[in-house]
């Protein structure tokens, strides 16, 4: 092994003097591999300036993207999961929830409240994928139901941003019933001619797509988001062949007629504001 050793001194790189790059200041775009600075990404709402790749962002960031500055008032802020089944897989669900709360600073997978879009009052909900895959259990279902009730009571247009892998397994049939609960409340809203705009982001699958996310008066998706009922892995396993290029992406869903438009994040607010003018 001696041929790999450097016999001569002073030709190795001195690592002690390396410029100390603060961790996590740079992000590599998964779309085009461009190295992007976080400040640059913040300015572009976490979309790649080069290829328009949309990074996944959280609910607090969407508040900034969509709502007028300092108009958001959060509701049901403290609501938390009660672990109704005392569920445990390789880990206890109650521990998983506690750890996730600590790690994310969120109490569950959706933020709800009211705010303004270009001065127009709205009821606003936004899911967080980083909270157990954005899954819907009793808390997400109940928060959406109460948000819809608030929209109904105050005649506010309802806007919900979906980002979720589906219903939460750890609450079993309780989670499943949230699909019926949320869809029923939207039916009530529809009877009162109150608009509901659904925004589908990456990813929106399973019980979320099969309930409130597909029920908008207008359904809008961000570019290249994965949207579907069954996940691509399950479909591939079931049918035993490869999936076509672009399958279950926003543009595919648009082509098949299940969403009204694909809108880049930076245009979301203006498009929604535009729509709200037609609904008022």
């Amino acid at each position, binding site marked *: 092994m001696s041929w790999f050793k450097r016999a001569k001194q002073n030709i190795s790189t001195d690592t002690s003097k390396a410029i100390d790059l603060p961790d996590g200041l740079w992000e590599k775009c998964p779309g085009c591999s461009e190295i992007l600075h976080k400040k640059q990404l913040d300015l572009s709402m976490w979309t790649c300036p080069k290829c328009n790749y949309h990074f996944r962002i959280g609910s607090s960031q969407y508040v900034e993207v969509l709502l007028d500055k300092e108009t958001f008032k959060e509701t049901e802020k*403290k*609501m*938390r*999961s*009660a672990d*109704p*089944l005392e*569920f445990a*897989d*390789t880990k206890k669900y109650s521990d998983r929830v506690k750890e996730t709360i600590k790690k994310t600073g969120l109490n569950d997978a959706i933020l709800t409240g009211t705010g303004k879009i270009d001065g127009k009052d709205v009821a606003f909900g936004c899911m967080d994928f980083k909270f157990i895959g954005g899954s819907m*259990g*009793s*808390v997400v*279902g*109940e928060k959406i139901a109460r948000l819809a009730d608030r929209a109904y009571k105050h005649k506010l247009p309802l806007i919900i941003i979906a980002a979720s892998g589906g*219903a*939460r*397994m750890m*609450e*079993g*049939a*309780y*989670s*499943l*019933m*949230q*699909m*019926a*609960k949320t*869809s*029923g*409340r*939207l*039916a*009530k809203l*529809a*009877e009162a001619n109150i608009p509901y705009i659904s925004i589908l982001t990456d990813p929106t699958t*399973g*019980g979320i*797509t*099969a*309930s*409130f*996310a*597909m*029920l908008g008066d207008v359904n809008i998706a961000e570019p290249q988001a994965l949207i*579907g*009922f*069954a996940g691509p892995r*399950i*479909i591939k396993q*079931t*049918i035993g062949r490869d*999936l*076509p290029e672009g*399958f*279950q992406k926003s543009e595919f869903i648009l082509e*098949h*007629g*299940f969403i009204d438009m694909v809108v880049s994040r930076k245009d979301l607010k203006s498009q929604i504001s535009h729509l709200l003018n037609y609904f008022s």
Partner: protein
Amino acid sequence: MSKNVLDFEKPIAELESKLEEMRKFADNLYIDAEIKNIEDKVVNLKESIYKNLTRWQRVQLARHPERPYTLDYIYLMTENFLELHGDRYFKDDKSIVGGFATIDEYKVMIIGHQKGRDTKSNVYRNFGMPNPEGYRKALRLMKLAEKFNKPIITMIDTPGAFPGIEAEERGQAEAIARNLFEMSKLKVPVLVIIIGEGASGGALGIGVGDRILMLENCWYSVISPESCSSILWRSWEYKEQAAEALKLTSADLLEQKLIDRIVPEPLGGAHKDHQTMALTLRNVIKEELSELIKIKPEKLFENRLEKFGKMGKWID
């Protein structure tokens, strides 16, 4: 002995076949007392086995290949069944059947998932896994029932909505979501009965109603034990644990207040005696309908919102 005997049913099946043999010779020999003895043993054994089934064993009973399916119930419980076909958009999905039927004084719309009994009929029925057109057909029939003021009975028995390319292209998610939305508003009573497997959105897609009943040996949850095992344990081997963790049996769901009533099955399960099962269910349906038709149509929507609104547990 039947080919379709589950592991935990074997001791019973063995005793039963022994009993049958003895009966053949009973005329010539004086073994009546012995026969009676074994008969008692069979009953005792059945009671002890079926009272103490694990959740996974109940899942197996719910999937028993000899279990009665929707069409079996329709033929055994109702008269004058008139099957209706097609969603009017794309095609007729064979994994959901439906039509008008009569149960004594009640004229109803009855809709349910339909599995096949053998390979050929299972391919025809797509193993009871609907495509979007199945849900759209179901909704069309429900709207028809609403138009002519007939109560609706839905029967749930599916391993899930079909996960396929075409199903996604035609909007599997939208079809299910639309049903949840529209079923909430129906102005006629909806009686939902889980008769076998209730797998997730594929089951709920025809499962929003005023009363939700479950046969004793059924399961109903957000995911099958196998898929849950593969996702949370990253292996298919933990299906028994997953079934336990999901708390998915009729007794569990009654305790969780997610269903209203359990319909008892004949000892050993519905597959042991289709006639008795159908008769029990027929009586239960009549009892339920007699109450449901008293509710004012304009109250139904509100009641359903309240019913499903209560489902779930959270800390405020």
